[in-house]
């Protein structure tokens, strides 16, 4: 039936095929939002840390990949575990040295992580200079998945394999994170600490260790996001700033109590952005989506997916 519609509308300027193409490609925006939002869903959603340096951990992941590629000529896929480990280690250090001292003081945390983001950008700029860096995409994930062909035989609906690969990685990480959080002892401890820190402590949970691991894991996820995105976008010290706002919108829209909220938030924002951008243009779409998120937060301050709680 879809095929039928497509055939009927092929000649008009507002083509249903092009819109379908756009919505399919919107999936790739969803993938990137999900990937960048996931780490934040851990640090903010689970730990309630307002982490303004989240974008810089994405940037660090991208630079780890750049470094490994330029010195050891490693394949992008092989650098993923390294960038996870390195950003997670830096995350753990940050938690121990800064965040830990500021629990329960959201304003100070906000200022401290903001400062941290400036420092991280500065350090990376000193080491690697401000020049844009080049990260090579793996050659075997190139080309496009295509559907439908027009009269000349060129495909009308297409999405690149690399963008599908990003969506795949994002979904795998989401599944892995939910498994860790809901089906393991560590996950149970993390949730216990989130719900009632003092009680968890009384019951013998090592809360400071749990905090450190959780924060490090969230930062590691951001690092993986940076690695995967780096070959499709630009690698430079301020790159993280671009993702910070989007990641926050995703997490806040979806609600922070359940991981599935991140998926929902990413899907809503990504697809509506793609759709509106196609009908109007990119800057306008961004304004409309931001405004919509603000309205949504006004009426549903806890996001779309929340757990009913007694307050």
């Amino acid at each position, binding site marked *: 039936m879809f095929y039928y519609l497509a055939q009927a509308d092929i000649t008009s300027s507002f083509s249903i095929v092009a819109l379908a193409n756009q919505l399919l490609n919107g999936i790739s925006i969803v993938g990137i939002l999900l990937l960048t939002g996931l780490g934040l869903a851990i640090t903010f959603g689970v730990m309630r840390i307002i982490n303004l340096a989240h974008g810089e951990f994405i940037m660090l992941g991208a630079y780890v990949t750049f470094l490994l590629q330029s010195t050891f000529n490693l394949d992008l896929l092989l650098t993923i575990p390294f960038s996870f480990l390195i950003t997670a280690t830096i995350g753990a250090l940050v938690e121990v040295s800064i965040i830990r001292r500021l629990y329960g003081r959201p304003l100070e945390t906000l200022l401290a992580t903001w400062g941290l983001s400036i420092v991280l950008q500065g350090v990376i700029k000193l080491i690697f200079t401000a*020049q*844009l860096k080049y990260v090579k995409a793996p050659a075997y994930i190139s080309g496009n998945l295509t559907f439908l062909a027009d009269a000349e035989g060129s495909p009308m609906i297409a999405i*690149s394999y690399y*963008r599908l690969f990003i969506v795949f990685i994002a979904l795998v990480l989401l599944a892995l994170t939910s498994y860790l959080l809901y089906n393991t002892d560590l996950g149970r401890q993390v949730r216990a600490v989130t719900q009632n820190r003092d009680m968890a402590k009384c019951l013998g949970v090592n809360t400071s260790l749990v905090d450190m691991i959780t924060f490090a894991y969230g930062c590691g996820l951001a690092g993986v996001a940076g690695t995967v995105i780096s070959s499709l976008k*630009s690698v*430079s*010290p301020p790159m993280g700033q671009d993702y910070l706002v989007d990641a926050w919108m995703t997490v806040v829209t979806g609600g922070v109590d359940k991981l599935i909220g991140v998926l929902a938030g990413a899907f809503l924002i990504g697809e509506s952005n793609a759709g509106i951008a196609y009908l109007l243009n990119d800057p306008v779409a961004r304004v409309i989506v931001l405004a919509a998120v603000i309205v949504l937060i006004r009426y549903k301050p806890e996001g779309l997916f929340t757990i009913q709680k007694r307050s």
Partner: protein
Amino acid sequence: MDKKNQQPFYNFGRRKFLKYGSLAVGTGILAACSGGASSSNEDLGENPIKVGVMYSTTGTIAIVEKSLQDATFLAIEQINTGTGPWSGKGEGIEGRKIQKVVVNPDSNWDLYNQMSKRLIDEDQVVCVLGCYTSASRKSVLPVFEEKDSILYYPVYYEGNECSSNVFYTGAAPNQQITDSIPYCYKNFGAKGFFIGSDYIYPKESNRIAKAELEKIGGKVVGDEYAALGTTEFITIINKIKQAKPDFVLSNLVGDSIPAFYRQYKDAGITADKIPIMAYPTTEEEILAMGTEYAAGHYTSFNYFQTVDTPENKAFVEQFKAMFGKNRVTNGVMEAAYLQTFFMAQAMGDALKAGKELNTKTIREYTRGQKFQAPQGLVKIDPDNYHTYLYSRIGKWKADGQAEIVFSTPAAVKPIAWSQTLYPGRVCTRPTPDDRSSPIKETGKDLQVKYLEKI
């Protein structure tokens, strides 16, 4: 957020407000101070000439402006040591060395304004080399005009300006757009899809290009802008696919460029099907995106690293020796480099004539100044303070360097106003410049004029 979590915000009393308020203000002041002027400590002999160097080395535009600063430093170094194009003229300008006063406006348009005031009032520099984006130039223009000081501006720009306080050493519209649009029409086809970053330069530049294309019978089938710093181009690429243009004209700047070219190829559009003609895409961005993504696409610029002149060979060699083997040179850097020599030559001529160095003498002596630059012989137009520059089109090869497929026989006389949009409008300043309004409507078709070789 539940009630409990909101409490700290409600208790945000006067004391706390003062605490955080002063903290925030303090950070701001600290940032401004650390971004303040720094003068070099090297031995500059007696009575050095103070020159302001104003490029952002932090923030989003730093990627480009840092390389302009590097090129400027190389030129100043060569002048102070009497090497490179300055060999044979001794160390410094008539024995006086250049003391650079460096400020960093942090990619913030307001800071450009403040920093330029500071350079002129407190540091009392003779003139300033700097700025990259049109937004920053527009921000400092009132300062230079009000305080009557001189800015050397090294960037291709949208035109429609003719200040007696700015020397424009980058391309005017007629040195970049006017040749590239007919080239696209002839070699690729009539339908163009125009894209750009969402601010003044790309929009004006595309408006001029659109007028040029329509004048020769072409058609603009799409016109799309992305916010500065955008790295997601799936929508624009989708619209390009649907519009099926013969070529894409790109006025994207900064980190958007690598992202766009990569996603363009990734989406399955090849350079032989729909080539991209770009203005701000240079060797530097090509290196960052990976050379295979740019191969087969085009850029219109005054200078490419592959320009075959002895001056250019020396420039590339000296630049790499100073800043590293893996660096590349590009058109904006070359302009930043050559304008420093324009300035030095003007100062030299003024000193030789026994004049004091001030705005008036520098202005009069810069007018008509000639320099054998890496791109070829160039000259400051004495009438409109823009620069006679070559107009070239390069096709990117797989090694990240350009094959020059079009070049004017000599440097082209600059015209500050797009003649398609404002036919016959010229800018002619009297000698000496009395800072009166220079705009004249001649109502005539201006012919292309080339600079005569020596």
